[in-house]
């Protein structure tokens, strides 16, 4: 009898070992196990901080889940924070990327957790200090108004991201409440499966054809190749990379590049590179790319600027920017299009800002980063991000010429709407000595509605230099902000937004 009882107890022990140890983790983390969420929600998650103020923080509640996550300026910072939802988890933004620190589960916080246990203090998460500038972020959000698109600003000398806005936006607080029904309703209203959903992070993960913004890279490669900025380069009304002559056929389909709306660039045959750049002449840069620079050099230059085909982590993920496949660089017809930012070239707004930043920073490209410091719950600094160089896109002398070309675009080219004039500086002393440079772009969407292409996306990437010091680089994309075939309208839509961000940022710096 005793052995029979022994066998029964042994069976229980083996099974309990199986349930509690072997399957323990799987049961512990099973989605149906509310304990995980209850435990996670029972400690205050750390703050996400912009210039000393929280943009995400946990507030005590009276319900079963002891803390609720709130985002004081939710929609403005949504692409940076992401959300923290009972129903949909924390898949985006810093809530995802810095989950270990914010939730207090990071191994570096082990000592602090242990201390909490021993002293009976309530455990809590660490905080994350972002590099964002509140004035720049708010200005970008306000200036975008109801338009779709994104703004990214960064400090050219460090790579610190100063603003990252994506529109349309959503309110992460509404996804982070404790009311699951309301969360689900709100989530559905955001059309999560729609490619234009507000949940899409246009600043970090959406890629766009750069259009004429690409000409910054093409120009850099040309300068390296020995082309001078005042050198007259071929700028015909139409360019046939595979050979041919005459105007490009209206119906398209031929390997033929023309200027926007078939405009003439300068005298119709040649133009100085600076002028072709300021007026954004397609034929000039397509021909430069195909006949002067070549695919390999252009590809290498694009890579130096950051179009590596690899995604980055800031630590919020940033999608890969790419110049396209090898055939886009070897095939002449394709290379002609690639040289002017069409074909398969795709960049994120972060990459757009990196292009302008590298030019403003004497040709040195800086690694973008969004997190300045990770802090333990006791506010001691766990990590502080040190600026990191990615490489040299151009040597300083040539870069100065490229910078000058970009200033020309804002002074008397397609980007005059970004100009900070003497009158502006008179009104606002913090704008004294500021020079803005940039490049507009108009990128075909390739989306046709009723046989007509939707209005192109309007780009502006630029920088502000104050008294010789690079202050800020900005990339703005306004989806469908341009008018088909008209480069200037793109500049008109995007450049003023960049100007607002520059003014707000410089105005905030004391």
């Amino acid at each position, binding site marked *: *009898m*005793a*052995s*029979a*009882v022994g066998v*029964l*107890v042994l*069976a*229980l*022990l083996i*099974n*309990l*070992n199986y*349930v*509690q*140890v072997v*399957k*323990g*983790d*799987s*049961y*512990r983390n*099973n989605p*149906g*196990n*509310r*304990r*995980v969420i*209850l435990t996670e929600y029972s400690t205050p998650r750390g703050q996400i901080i912009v210039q000393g103020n929280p943009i995400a923080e946990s507030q005590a509640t*009276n*319900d*079963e889940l002891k803390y609720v996550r709130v985002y004081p300026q939710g929609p403005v910072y949504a692409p940076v924070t992401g959300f923290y939802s009972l129903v949909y988890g924390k898949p985006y933004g810093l809530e995802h990327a810095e989950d270990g620190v914010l939730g207090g589960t990071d191994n570096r916080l082990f000592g602090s957790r242990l201390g909490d246990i021993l002293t*009976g203090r309530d455990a809590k998460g660490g905080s994350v200090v972002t590099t964002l500038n509140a004035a720049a972020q708010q200005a970008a959000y306000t200036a975008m108004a109801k338009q779709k698109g994104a703004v990214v600003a960064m400090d050219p000398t460090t790579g610190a991201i100063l603003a990252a806005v994506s529109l349309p936006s959503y309110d992460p607080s509404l996804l982070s409440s404790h009311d699951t029904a309301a969360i689900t309703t709100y989530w559905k209203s955001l059309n999560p499966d729609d490619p234009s959903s507000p949940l899409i992070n246009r600043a970090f993960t959406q890629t766009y054809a750069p259009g004429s913004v690409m000409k910054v890279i093409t120009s850099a490669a040309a300068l390296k190749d020995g082309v001078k900025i005042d050198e007259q380069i071929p700028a015909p009304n139409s360019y046939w990379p595979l050979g041919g002559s005459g105007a490009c056929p209206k119906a398209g389909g031929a390997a033929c590049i023309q200027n926007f709306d078939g405009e003439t660039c300068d005298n119709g045959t040649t133009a100085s590179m600076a002028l072709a750049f300021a007026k954004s002449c397609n034929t000039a840069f397509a021909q430069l790319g195909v006949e002067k620079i070549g695919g390999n050099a252009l590809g290498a230059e694009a890579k130096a600027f950051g179009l590596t085909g690899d995604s980055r982590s800031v630590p919020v993920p940033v999608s890969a920017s790419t110049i396209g496949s090898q055939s886009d660089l070897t095939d002449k017809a394709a290379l002609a299009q690639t040289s002017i930012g069409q074909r398969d070239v795709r960049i994120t707004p972060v990459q757009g800002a990196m292009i302008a930043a590298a030019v403003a920073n004497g040709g040195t490209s800086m690694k973008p980063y969004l997190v300045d410091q990770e802090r333990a719950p006791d506010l001691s600094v766990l990590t502080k991000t040190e600026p990191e160089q990615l490489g040299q896109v151009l040597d300083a002398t040539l870069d100065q010429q490229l910078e000058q070309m970009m200033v020309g675009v804002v002074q008397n080219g397609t980007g005059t709407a970004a100009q900070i004039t003497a009158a502006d500086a008179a009104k606002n002393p913090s704008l004294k000595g500021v020079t803005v440079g940039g490049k507009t772009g108009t990128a075909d969407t390739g989306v046709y509605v009723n046989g007509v292409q939707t209005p192109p996306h309007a780009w502006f990437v630029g920088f502000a230099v104050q008294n010789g010091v690079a202050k800020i680089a900005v990339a703005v994309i306004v989806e469908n902000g341009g008018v088909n075939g008209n480069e200037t309208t793109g500049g008109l839509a995007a450049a003023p937004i960049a100007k607002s961000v520059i003014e707000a940022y410089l105005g905030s710096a004391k």
Partner: protein
Amino acid sequence: MSAPTPEVATRRNTELALLIFAVVIVVAAEGAVEGARNGRVSSHLVLYGSVPLAAGLIAHVVVRRVAAYADPFLLPIVVLLNGLGLVMIHRLDLGLAQQAKEGIGDSAQAEAPTQMVWTAVGLALFLAIIMIVRDHRVLRRYAYTLALVGLFLLVLPIVLPARFSEVNGARIWIRVAGFSIQPGEFAKILLTIFAASYLVDKRDVLSLAGRRVFGIDFPRGRDLGPLVAAWVICIGVLVGGHDLGTSLMFFGLFVVLLYIATERFSWVIVGAVLFVAGAYATYQLFGTVQTRVSVWIDLFSAAHNDDGYQLRQSLFGLGTGGLFGTGLGAGHPELVPLPATDYIISSFGEELGLFGLVALLVIYVLFIARGFAAALAVRDSFGKLLAAGLSFLIGLQLFVVVAGVSRLLPETGLTTPFLSYGGSSLIANYALLALLLRVSDSARRPGATSRPATADADVQTPSETTAVIGS
């Protein structure tokens, strides 16, 4: 009657020391609960320390007087289990009240104070039995009466209208004037007494007559009567009351007692065959049994989203507890429906982990081992069968419960002896303790053999029975 020989120690002081040790553990557990819930200890600590202390001391003093040679481990173990049960029930009260405050679930009435009342009632029954029944052999005289009462209790909920007897689909209750009694808990003890007595009478014929098949002696067909009768009763309980647990326990108990009494393994084989046949038949015939089995097998399939919820939550609790548990008061055992009754084991598993649960099981094993030790030591066959049967009852019930909440077997819906919330279970198990103490007292009492034998004292064949219990 001769005076107690001085060299046989009563070991009552051991019992007292163990009692105090048990109460210290209970107080520490309650302290841990309060510390985890409120960050400080309150006056509750005194209450949860003094209830088991008082119950233990009162029982101890009486045992000193009327059962001085009783086993010194049994009472402290029961006080420990009862005390830990109270602490866990209190802890679950806190968790459920918190949930209710947060608008999840209904506001439930605190169960710990009620369980204290049940403890007192259980103690009273314990005292009554141990004081009135001065010699367990007396019970044999009333064996048939007790059997009738037991059967009556067992059948009563089935024949009563459902509104008096049905709770959560199982008709095993009698609900009168706000009280609910689970008569099966009492019936199990009465029927154990009867079975022990009956088998002592009939063991010769059951163990000797038979025919040999494949080298094993099988009983004659006409001797199968008692076993078949027990089987029919169990099937009846299962069919009428939808109570898988009770019927499984009764049948297991009867087969085991048959085996102990006769020493014939063939009874176990016959019992197993009958069990399988009964299980198969009821599975085929009754939807409730099919559902239980289906939930057990396909617990995580969407089809069992609702009816598998409880068992899934139990597994999640056990898994979350892992090796060391979340700590008393720091987990969420209240997420499992019925955490204080059927699922108190998973509540312990979550907060004390595998280590704590194994420790609990070891405490039960110790209790059962002491029961078996008494069965081995006592000199009369009825006492042997009674002590072994009662100990095995605790073991079987524990096995069925732990196997159920940890998905080793389909759920049966039994309570965990001494730990679970519930008056019937607690009171009945206190009665069981009294009987075990009585047998163990008789086993160690010096000069007991020289007592005048009662009229129905059996022919002594202690060696055989002893061998089966000890094997």
